[in-house]
């Protein structure tokens, strides 16, 4: 699609007047999505989509329009030209945009990876074989992802990747299940077999009688998947320059210095070690690493071009939402092998679910445990626990009550497929927390 996109852009750029500037941001994919239920295929299909956002700038006025491109050049050029006419008709009515900011120097980049995945049919066959006899439910998403940027200032950026993600559960009974994800760029049936065997071993613990847990505070271990969800809540404005300036950040007290997290908490936006493209939709290049929290204190925020202009900050390549796309949290000193022993007696939370703020300004979060949540006694799993609700502030969970972070961290590609397949990722450790409150 690279040549088609740039060819499309050149044709439109040729019609742009001397007082105008045009940028185009492309997001496309050729994906296969295969849903499974009860170890069988529920809903398989393919999606080819090519979306392009055209932004027309005239002086300090701007408007934008996103188009679905068909991939048929002449047809797309006609749609693009129509879109430009609509944008021109709008722009004459608009006031100057005081927060318009574009790259001063064009910075062209290209990052293309090789397709190493087998045909999706082979992957489906492997999954059905390995899951035979199991109550497996989940989704395989696979295929090519492309991102591009072009501007009349001469900048050209292109990114392609060919990842897969297999996100699944094996159910034991009722709501008791073991959740697994496997994502990457190379498919290996042997790895799939290992992961399925590992999940089946965990499934055996769910055979034990359910431990009834009364509401109260418990020593608790959150796996990296659970920590990713908890820390991910900070992405709801916590690292946003705009939300921080306004006072809408859930890290309000961290940004004011009234509160701090445990000194072991270090968080950054680490695009260099993520898998996402290195440019954002206005064409700014994302730096490799943006420190956000260091030694428990807020040391940086993600600054979009609009916020940079509005607040006089230095733009650091954030998108409009100013949320991380490659969140990286430093590990601690606790080896994974010692987690159960250090937990001793308490709750082992494999996954969290449906988190939301119960008091945003106070950084207080509620949510549920999900899948294989286990009761541990003297470092040994005793049995599963029914889903429990927690309600706790970040300042307690990752501050006063944080006991340890695991040395090892887990890297996960996002499995989100809202509108399109995500290229975001997280790399976080597990966390041992004292007196974690379960309320219902």
């Amino acid at each position, binding site marked *: 699609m690279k040549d088609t996109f740039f060819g499309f852009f050149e044709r439109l750029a040729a019609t742009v007047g001397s007082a105008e500037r045009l940028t185009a941001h492309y997001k496309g994919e050729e994906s296969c*999505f295969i849903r499974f*239920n*009860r170890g*069988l295929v529920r*809903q*398989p*299909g*393919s*999606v*080819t*989509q*090519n979306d392009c956002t055209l932004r027309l700038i005239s002086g300090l006025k*701007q*408007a934008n*329009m*996103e*188009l*679905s491109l*068909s*991939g048929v050049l002449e*047809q797309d050029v006609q749609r693009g030209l129509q879109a430009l006419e609509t944008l021109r*008709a*709008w722009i004459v*009515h*608009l006031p100057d*945009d005081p927060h*318009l900011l574009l790259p001063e120097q064009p910075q062209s980049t290209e990052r293309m990876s090789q397709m190493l995945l087998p045909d999706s*049919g082979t992957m*489906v066959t492997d999954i*059905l074989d390995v899951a035979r006899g199991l109550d497996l*439910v*989940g*989704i395989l998403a696979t295929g090519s992802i492309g991102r591009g940027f072009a501007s009349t200032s001469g900048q050209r950026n292109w990114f392609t990747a060919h990842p897969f993600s297999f*996100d*699944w*559960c094996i*159910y034991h009974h009722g*709501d008791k299940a073991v959740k697994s994800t496997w994502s990457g760029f190379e498919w290996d049936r042997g790895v799939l077999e290992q992961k399925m065997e590992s999940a089946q071993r965990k499934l055996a613990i769910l055979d034990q009688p359910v431990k009834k847990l009364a509401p109260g505070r418990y020593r608790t271990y959150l796996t990296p998947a659970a920590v990713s969800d908890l820390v991910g809540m900070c992405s709801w404005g916590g690292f946003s320059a705009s939300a921080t300036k*306004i*006072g*809408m950040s859930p890290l309000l007290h961290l940004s*004011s210095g009234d509160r701090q997290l445990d000194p072991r908490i270090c968080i950054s936006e680490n695009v260099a070690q993520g898998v996402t493209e290195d440019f954002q939709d206005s064409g700014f290049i994302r730096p490799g690493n943006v420190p956000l929290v260091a030694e428990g204190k807020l040391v940086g925020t993600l600054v979009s071009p609009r916020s940079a202009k509005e607040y006089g900050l230095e733009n650091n390549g954030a998108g409009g939402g100013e949320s991380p796309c490659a969140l990286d949290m430093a590990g601690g000193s606790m080896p994974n092998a010692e987690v159960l022993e250090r937990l001793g007696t308490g709750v082992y939370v494999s996954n969290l*679910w*449906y988190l*939301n*703020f*119960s*008091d*945003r*300004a106070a950084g207080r979060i*509620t*949510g*549920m445990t999900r899948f294989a949540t286990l009761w541990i006694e003297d470092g040994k799993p005793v049995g599963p626990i029914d*889903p429990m*609700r927690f*309600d706790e502030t970040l300042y307690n969970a990752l501050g006063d009550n944080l006991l340890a972070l695991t040395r090892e961290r887990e890297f996960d590609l996002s499995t989100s*497929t*809202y509108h399109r397949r995500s290229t975001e990722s997280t790399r976080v450790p597990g966390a041992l927390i004292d007196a974690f409150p379960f*309320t*219902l």
Partner: protein
Amino acid sequence: MFEKTAERFRECIPSVDFCSLRVVREQTEVMAMLRGVLQPPSSREDFGGMVTVIHGGGLGYAATSDLSTSGLNQAIARAKKWAERSALASVYDFSSVPMPHPQGTYASPVEQPFHDMSVSDCMALLKTESDKLTIDPRVVHWGVSIMYVGTDSLYLTSGGGEVFQQLRHIAPAIEAVASDGSDTQSRTMASLRGFSQQGGLEVLERSGFYSDGPRIAREALELLEAPQCPSGEQDLILDADQMMLQIHESIGHPLELDRILGDERNYAGTSFVTADMFGEYQYGSKLLNITFDPTLSEQFASYGYDDDGVQATKEYLIQDGVLVRPLGGLLSQHRAGLNGVANSRACSWNRPPIDRMANINLEEGTDSLSALIGQVEKGVYMRTNRSWSIDDSRNKFQFGCEWGREIVDGALGRVVRNPNYRGISAGFWRNLKAVGDGSTRGVMGTPYCGKGEPNQVVRVGHASPACLFSNVAVFGGV
């Protein structure tokens, strides 16, 4: 353009048990003013089609925005290949389902089309409404916006079915955020664009877009100085703009048949409702009557036919408190051996239809708001959702509202901040003590309901009166 696509499809129909093409052209426009600054107008022209093939018991789909003859033929080939592959290991023999071949049209009622308003007039309107929010320096963030979505869709089947639908949606929003440095409080006209409806510019009038700004800003400021919501088990009155969330999360989702069949267990979750409960289970008190109602034409998720071509009709899901019917489309109904409704829906051309809520409404009762309040000795009246969390079986929930007011001895008392409540779906609905009349009813809707693998966001509608619940665990902030 649709006519040519239909002609091409008819020329390409393969020799299979069933084949359909669903073409969607959706135009979205958003005009917004944040903190007094007009944001760059943004729009979206989304256009493409999905081919579905059922053959030999298997089902497959392929989506493309190339609707040329060549593009359609490629999509049909891909969908057929998936149908053939999955036939060997499918959860169900989909060829056994008699798919409909409907003929029909449907259009939203529009009194005054959105595009009757020029860009200049829209900007002037936004500025007028935005200025109403700047009543105090402690209002640190304020915004007004209007989203317009026009959706044209054509559904064609290999048996000659043809359904054309034109939906027009308006989703207004007003927000004010007040901060004193140590606390931040927000008020909105309804969170998540909750006053979204079908229609034209008349929706702005119905939603209160022209009048609500000053109240919203004033209430955000009031909240900064309000005491925390009192904790304890007490009575709770929820207004329509919180009832929409309560209905959505703890009735709508658990009644979705694909959850009950297990399809969503890896992502959106399962349900505490099981297939054997229908016709017997006492879901709530006898005052609880819930309908699937696509016939309320101004409501946000009304339509004539779902995305499997099934004609939509009003049906009771819960009647006099008893669970009677799940939210399941045609394929799920056959898989489960249960009846259902026409709710097989996709968010657009690039996602396959699954069981979704549409308009899920709570039918009116007989009490005015003052009559509801008069029944409360000690309780809280809450408005406007701001936080929502519920377990994957849709049972244990905790919801928060933007604004609350104490009720003492049948009269409204102080405004309280950070009002939250938690409960378990089954017990909560059985504690439904009184249902408001038509004067308390709000026809709400939101563009943002997420579910499915691959993920989809769809429009939903929830009309409800205010309701009174007894013995609810209520609490405030830190």
